[in-house]
């Protein structure tokens, strides 16, 4: 084979991997022009792992940036990722608490029926603790086609929906968003800081969406909150260490039923 028709193959890619100067020099020149043979080699499916390390990454980065299109927000996908990551997250459960201990804590924390059904209003629940913090939640469901519908208490929603919560708090509060479903321990979906007034529940800059993927049947979202302040961090620590909810915690609950094929009402 004369040098002029040398193309990339398994042998030459090994030479390049070993940084053999002659091969490096030859292919730096040869590959600077289109070559169907070499491109076919680079496109083949059965490339060995680690061949030309980093080249795929360099290529994909450039290809996906070429359009320069702004990226739309994807609350649905992010909510799914969060669910798939599994809760509770160590972001708030620091200090070596394992998932098992966390589940026990939460079983204490979220007593079924706390607040009582008598307090429930059709689409907005007000459940007062013993202290003045007043808390309400309302919700909307965002569907994959982008439509957003209000969700009433006991609404039937499809598993493709992502539930976005809106709260009203009478004062600044630390809060946990917890998911309850029959037969499984309560699951913390996130820790939030509530500000006085009516706001979307956020996670940093993002809306805190709850994905219902893989859910079937009843599921309840519970926002548990207690006044923020000097004792705020101490209260969280107490939850961690002993499972004790601050006595002035308030809860707002939203019961849903997940069933395929139903659009949110």
């Amino acid at each position, binding site marked *: 084979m004369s040098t002029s028709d040398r193309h990339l193959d398994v042998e030459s890619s090994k030479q*390049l991997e070993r*940084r053999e100067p002659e091969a*490096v*020099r030859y*292919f*730096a*020149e*040869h*590959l*600077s022009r*289109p*070559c169907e043979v*070499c*491109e*076919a080699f*680079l*496109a083949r*499916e059965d490339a060995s*792992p*680690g061949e*030309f*390390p*980093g*080249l*795929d*990454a*360099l*290529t*994909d*980065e*450039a*290809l*996906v*940036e*070429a*359009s*320069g*299109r702004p*990226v*739309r*927000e*994807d609350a649905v*996908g*992010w909510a*799914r*990722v*969060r669910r*798939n*990551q599994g809760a509770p*997250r*160590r*972001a708030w459960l620091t200090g070596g608490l394992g998932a098992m201990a966390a589940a026990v804590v939460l079983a204490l924390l979220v007593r079924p029926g706390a607040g009582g059904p008598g307090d429930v209003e059709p689409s907005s629940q007000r459940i007062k603790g013993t202290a003045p913090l007043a808390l309400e939640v309302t919700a909307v469901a965002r569907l994959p086609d982008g439509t957003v519908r209000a969700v009433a208490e006991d609404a039937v929603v499809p598993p493709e929906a992502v539930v976005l919560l809106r709260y009203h708090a009478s004062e600044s509060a630390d809060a946990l968003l917890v998911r309850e479903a029959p037969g499984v321990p309560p699951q913390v979906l*996130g820790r939030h800081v509530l500000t006085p007034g009516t706001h979307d529940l956020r*996670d*940093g*800059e*993002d809306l805190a969406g709850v994905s219902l993927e893989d859910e079937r049947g009843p599921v309840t979202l519970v926002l548990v909150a207690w006044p923020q302040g000097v004792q705020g961090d101490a209260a969280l620590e107490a939850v961690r260490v002993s499972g004790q909810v601050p006595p002035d915690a308030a809860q707002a609950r939203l019961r849903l039923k997940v069933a395929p094929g139903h659009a949110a009402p």
Partner: protein
Amino acid sequence: MADCIRRAAQGEQAACGQLYQRFHGAVRRVAQGSGTLEAAEVEDVVQETFVRAFRELPRLQHPRAFSGWLLTIARHHAYALSRNVKARARAAEDLAREADMSVPALPPSLTLERRVAVVRALIEGLPEGPEKDTARLFYLEGELSAREIAERLGLGKSAVTMRLERFRARVKRELLARLLAAEVG
């Protein structure tokens, strides 16, 4: 961005969320361009990619390697879904290696800006025809999926995927030439 990646590596959800919102489009694009996946499968690739990336993030050595590393994971997951069992096993092997990937400083001819310019110039340089239309629609306009491009151009989906793969190999060839030229000095 580097700070955001470090916070995400410590499990901070807000930082993970920011990374997701910044990169989900790029990950989806890689999945859409690297196989014959259905729309739902593409979304699964996006999911698996981010779940895996957030789990492995503490192992990533350099924040600046993040986007390339993330897209490598996406490509492997897309291959794993669309190819055979053997490809899947190799994808797993490859992934273990990628996390440790050292990132040499890039020569000036390979900054992201220069690489994007390479992509655009290569598309411009293609002769008018279905190959150029396909690359332009997918990579420059960046909105349609391979399936939608096939419908618009009246082609089979595999023909579109093949053209995208061929164009991608062209970009790889040009970037590899630059990598090697930087070594020659």
